[in-house]
């Protein structure tokens, strides 16, 4: 099965405010997907819709080729889910919540859970309500990993983790999972952490996916061009796929995607004093896609 998760024409509104509009993408095993978007762009809503926490207004979600309903549950056995905020029952202990959680997952690995509890420095006897947010996130990660997921969904968890854990989690754990065939869907707005591990990028803006490409391709085809003019830069430039622009005096910075020889030729034809082209970082790409023009 080359396709693990497929989302088609997914829409969701809160009242009159449309949060997701005709979202569509696929997730394949063994890859790390970065789901990027500014705060409030609908990343959490998309993930909660996939997880059946909230109902969708329209669209189809399929897991391993089978459509899943809002009431459906079986597909969740193959999904590990780490949400943005801690969500466990506060009265249970760390060991208790893991034992409770394990009963829902047929592939639950209690030894791995115990080992990860130790690895993350959690006290098995501690009540969940006494844990810090970071500790609860670690517990969520332990619970998600011990379920033996085919798809791990991470809803921006790293901001709550301390630096060593974050590094450990991003560099070792996710890489290890992906190599083992697990797909990872990692929603975040902290893009520099994603850069090292991501295989594929989704960028959400205005409720739509505005970028759905392999990261290697994006790296090659995303360029920054700084163009110096003899006077104010022109208002309108007909040079193709500008995803972002910034005026700096007589200079104009353009973020371009996808870069091509035709775009290069267009830049040369501008009669600028000079121009420089360089590759973009992931942060620049993200900024270009999600930031309003200035």
């Amino acid at each position, binding site marked *: 099965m080359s396709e693990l998760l497929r989302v088609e024409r997914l829409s969701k509104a*809160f*009242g009159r405010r449309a949060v997701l509009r005709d979202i569509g993408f696929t997730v394949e095993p063994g890859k790390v997907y970065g789901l990027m978007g500014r705060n409030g762009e609908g990343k959490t809503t998309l993930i*909660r819709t996939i*997880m*059946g*926490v*909230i*109902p969708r207004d329209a669209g189809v979600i399929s897991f391993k080729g089978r459509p899943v309903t*809002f*009431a*459906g*549950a*079986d*597909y*969740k*056995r193959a999904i590990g*889910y780490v*949400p943005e*905020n*801690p*969500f*466990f*029952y*506060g*009265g249970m202990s760390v060991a208790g919540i893991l034992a*409770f*959680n394990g*009963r*829902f*997952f047929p592939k639950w690995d209690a030894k791995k859970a115990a080992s990860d509890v130790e690895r993350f420095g959690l006290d098995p006897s501690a009540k*969940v*309500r006494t844990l810090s947010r970071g500790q609860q996130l670690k517990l969520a990660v332990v619970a998600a990993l011990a379920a033996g997921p085919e798809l791990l969904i991470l809803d921006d968890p790293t901001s709550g983790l301390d630096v060593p854990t974050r590094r450990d989690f991003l560099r070792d754990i996710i890489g290890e999972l992906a190599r083992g065939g697990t797909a990872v869907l990692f929603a975040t707005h902290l893009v520099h952490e994603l850069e090292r591990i991501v295989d594929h990028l989704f960028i959400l803006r205005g409720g739509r996916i505005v970028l759905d490409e392999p990261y290697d391709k994006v790296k090659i085809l995303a360029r920054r061009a700084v163009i110096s003019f003899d006077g104010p830069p022109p208002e309108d430039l007909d040079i193709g796929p500008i995803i972002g622009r910034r005026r700096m005096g007589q200079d104009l910075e353009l973020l371009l995607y996808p870069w091509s020889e035709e775009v290069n030729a267009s830049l040369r034809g501008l009669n600028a004093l000079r121009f420089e082209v360089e590759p973009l970082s992931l942060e620049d790409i993200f900024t270009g896609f999600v930031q309003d023009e200035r």
Partner: protein
Amino acid sequence: MFKTLLIKEWKDKAPLVAFGLGIMALMLAAFLVLGDDQDLRELIPATFLIFFFPVIGAMLGAGAFESEFRDGAWTYLLSRPVRKETIWLAKLVASLSILAGSWLLFIGLLAVAPGLEEVVSGLKLPDMLGSGLALFPLILLSSLFFLSIAFSLSILTDKPLSVVFGSLFLGFVLEGVLFVFAFLAQGRAMLTQSGRFPMLGVFNLGLVLSSLAFLAASLLTWLKADFSQSRIKTGALARWCLLFLAAAWALSAAWPALRPGPKEEIGSIEVVGNEAVLSTSKGLYHYELESGRFRKIVRLRLDWGCSAVGGGKVLYVAGHDLQGGFELWVANTDGSDKRLLWGSGRGDMSVSFWPGTPRISPDGKTAVFAYEETSETSPRSHVRSLASIGTEGRGLKKLAPLDPGLAGEGEQSATIIRGWLGSPDGLLMWARPLKAGSGPRTVRTPYNVWRYDLASGAQIKLFESPGSVSLVPNPAGNMALLISEKDQAGPIDISLLDLKTGTTTPISTIERPGKGTPLWSAIEHSAWSGDGDRVGFLIHREGHLPTPAVYSGKDRRLVMGPGIRLQESPDLSNGLAWIGDGTKLAVTAVRDRSIYVLGPDLALEKTVPVPPSVNGRFRVWPVGAAVLLTDQENQAIWRLDLKTDKWKRIW
């Protein structure tokens, strides 16, 4: 999954269980210590019942989703690989099981705490709320109701205390409204149908269905609504609650009409010439000569399925009216032109039961019925009289009091109307006075035969007998077969009584088959032929087989046939009827499971076995050229084709 969730829910509710046990222990201790005080003895359990179970029900329901609100664990719970309905069911079962456990524990206390059961079983609601209604079952039902309300509301808010108080308030209001609703439904039902309306049944059913309505609304909201949007969630719950509550209350109100009534049972068949009307427990049916089947003409709940046929009309008594009396109706035998002749809502007369009533004249123009005088201070007098009324609904006439010797001051009479007399219109009555204060089994003599002229009100004693009397008038109403005795040991006289003049024509005198054999066992099953000339009966004499006999008024001759070897039947269920063209007698023999057909000379022409499935008591009814057989045990009616001797089941 379910077990895992259920155990978690039970653990969550452990503090509430401990609280409930503590309150129950306090109540028990208070009852045992203070129970000697008569006031406190009732007050303590009553207060406990009224407050504890509704409150504990509301608290259990209110806490259903408390941990998800408290710990923000909605996302955790809903993202687990477990179906949403399983989560909901586990929460409901946990709450219900603890509530049921508290019931059982209290019932256990009733068994072991001295005097507690006696006090609790004696606790009743005030009369205005339903006289004599036991408090305990209602409280248990209410606790279920409060639980369901609180359970459904608990998905809306993270404030369980608000849910508890809100549920108690809403529950008490709804119970009050439901009670008024059931009361009004009862009033409406009494105006539109006969029979007792089960108001408390409607109320209790309403409580159960309302509980289910709240739970169904909760489930649908849980399964369908977006829990991240509280306004949508609240709106969805409100919509489902209103919809299901309306359905629950409509079903409760309709339940008395929808519930299956008692099984329809066939009664007697009233035959006059070619007309036959079957009474059952659910209505009246007319026998259609052409199709050979019964067709329903009147649909009614008959507490007293009494009908009379005459002149193409059927007279019948419907069940209770608003004042608990009966209604007298008339209709054509094809079911058309149904008309209410009299009900207790009219005047000071309440239609009542009297053996042999109501009666309809052979021309179908006059009806006679029994009634009781009613007044505001005394709704029922229990003194029955007779009245006549035209079948078009006019001309009500209270008949003159019966002969003082029969129903005079200080005396009662056992009077049975035996038939309608020919010209002039009148009633044939068979009566005997009862001594004041005498019991029903007291020997009552003499037996008198009276003629009551409806036009003049004259009451004429036609015959007086010191012993028992059997009286069967002919269809024309001018002659009757009179079987009488002077005492209970001597011979039995068979004669004809002229119903106009009262003169008797002796036919025969027979000895009893055994010492002390009652008159009605010695000569039984008298039946007049359709032309009113011949009367047949079955004579039992000592040492003889039962002998069929026919007396012809035209020939002035008694013909006795050969004896028939009938298996004696102690329940007198053999019978005799004129069949075919009226020249043949059919003797039914229940034990032999056969019908013996006798020719004009009373010789046995043939024996027709009854259908194989008829193995109990049965009766035959000649209707026109057909013979019908009613099988009470199997609730079946068969029609005999006299040409082929084949039976066809028609009921």
